[in-house]
């Protein structure tokens, strides 16, 4: 029971952190071009691999 008093706040705290991170990502415009972000991964940078 005492372990719960520690674990539950920790769990919720981590959840809130996750939620905060999600909110930040919306505000910083990461969801403005979802399709573009998806295809940027596949772009070739023209830098030769030495």
């Amino acid at each position, binding site marked *: 029971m005492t372990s719960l008093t520690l674990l539950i706040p920790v769990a919720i705290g981590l*959840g809130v952190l996750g939620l905060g991170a999600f909110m930040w990502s919306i505000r910083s415009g990461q969801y*403005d*071009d979802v399709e573009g972000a998806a295809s940027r991964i596949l772009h070739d940078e023209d830098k030769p691999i030495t």
Partner: protein
Amino acid sequence: MSCCTSHGIAELATDQVAVPKRALIEELKANARGLADGSVNYLLSVPVIHCGNCIATIESTLSKHPGVKAVRANLSLRQVSVTLDGQDNSIAPVLDALDAAGFPAQPASATAEEGKDPEFRALVRALAVAGFASANIMLLSVAVWNGAEGATKDLFHLISALIAIPAVAFAGMPFFRSAIAALSRRRMNMDVPISLGVTLATFMSMYEIFIGGGHAYFDAAVSLLFFLLIGRTLDHMMRTKARAAAGRLARLSAKGGFVLGENGETVYTPLEALRPGMVLRVSAGERFPVDGTVLDGVSDVDRALVTGESDPQRVVLGTGVEAGTLNLTGAVDIRATRAARDSFLAEVTRMMSAAEQGRGSYTRIADRMAKIYSPAVHLLALTSFIGWMIWTGGDWHTSLTVAVAVLIITCPCALGLAVPVAHVVSAGRLFDAGILMKDGSALERLESMTDAVFDKTGTLTTGEPVLRETAIPQGELASIARAMAQRSVHPASRALVKSLVTSQAVTLTDVHEVPGQGVEAIVNGKRARLGRLEWVSEITKGDTAGQGNSAFGVEGKGLYLSVFSEQLRSGARQMLADLKQRGIHATVLSGDSEANVSSLAKNLGLEDYQAGLKPGDKLTFLQDAAGHGQRTLMVGDGLNDAPALAAAHVSMAPSTASDVGRNAADFVFTRESLDAVSFAYGVAQRTGKIVRQNFALAVLYNVFAVPLAMSGQLNPLIAAIAMSTSSIIVVANSLRLQLLRPEKREDTVQTAPQGRMLPA
């Protein structure tokens, strides 16, 4: 250059004469943003972007361009943000570079912000909070369902309460606001029972905890919000996607004009600053920004988009021109007679707003259901309360619990999810078929239509004339005629270029377009003319061959005539036959002459038509139809159709329509063929069927669940399972719309018909 194979929507009709470069550049300069370090940022709309390769190409091409500080392409919005360093860098070479790479660009419309959609962000935030809360509360609830007792149960309930209360307050805002707005207008919509159910569930659960023990329904309340927010966010995404796509289509109206200064130089002036009495120069290929009278110059003006007339009108000194009409052949100077906001265009816009308001609000099917649903649910809850009061002899607590249980279990999440999901799926199908749907209610309205009204020029016809017959012999003469026609913007010339064949190379010198008459050139030392009959016959001698009033001839030789006529849009006949089969009556309303309209109507087999109509007349026709209880679909493209498009029960416009027309219509179809109308109608009917099925499922679910609640058997576990299952079933049913594969729309490619040629 090659990009991936294009199967995206062809959003720029290739024959369309869009706003010319210099006006675009002026507009870009006006909307540019200066940044802190002195660089200037431009936002361009590039409709042909359709894949990841496109944005890679654009970014790599432009980043190497001199003067470009930063470039970022947005695939979802089809926009490119370019930052140039310093004030003296012009955006023009950037536009040319984009053009050369295959990406024609135009200024992003003022309404299309760089992806900052505040409503969307608010919805996603609420969704995130509801999701977080429901997941965590569910974790705690699982323990309680599995038999946690005593102190553990109380602790978990307490923590659930702490999570739930702020979550409901934040995530419930969209619903509470909507419910309050509806109630203050004495109307009922779906959000009223939702808000009521959620708040009651939360408060009752808090009360239960307070008195110790009992059931807590926090998970039900928060999960309900979560499901409904999913539906709402999807709905919003669908609407913005379609609206953004419609807004990206090539703009046809000028945002300003070139004012003639004293020493003959022209100054670009935005529309709002143009005043009556100003002298403006409008070049060939530009649209008149305001109403005016011609001071100098001769030209032909295409009035199709404004009045529906298919034949260009010749303008000379003193002729009046209207804002929005296209100057075809020669530069003219006009004196503005009315300011932009008093012009014909503005008048039409005002008619439109008035029509929209007078249309009367359409109650969406979900809200109509709410009118029956909410009173029924509240009645049931009341009955249970009274029943239990009597049964238990005045036990407030139990009776209240049962009443709230009834409210919770009749979860409208099925209803709140069913309609948005069905509409989103259908909107996706339509989008893939090149049809943009602005609003879910448009689909409902399309399903219920009884009559259809079509505009002629530009809607039933392509708006481009086509060569029917020509006497110009094949060989040298046809090659000469075609070479001359290529230098002209006149629609008849474009038709000649498509139909005639260049069989030998010809050298023309001194080619010039004589506005109002035609094209003249010197070939093999002799003059050749292509254009109006009287003008060409001035230089010809000998026989006249063929019929028509468009002529071609070489000095001293014979005269050859050609006949042009309007071309029906592909799919027109098929679509009209289809509508007839489904019992929808079709009428043609046009601003064009009686002769042109009646021949077209006869051609298509339509009995009902009206010609020579002004925009106000079309509006009156529709209002009369509405008065008779008809629900009319209006399909039109021009400025003169805009009020009718706004007033009709439901409306569609082709992507070649005027800006105003496109904004007014509920649907915009981007492909050439008119079968968009019957296809959209088919989709609307199927969607309506699925939505009704979903309602039936929701009612069925309630039939099982309500007795359970009324008998006092409800506990949070059952509530959670029941809610989730009903939502899943309803969403799965809506997704069936994806599976039902209706007739696949063919990509009709328009082929230029060959003119009949007499032997040389």
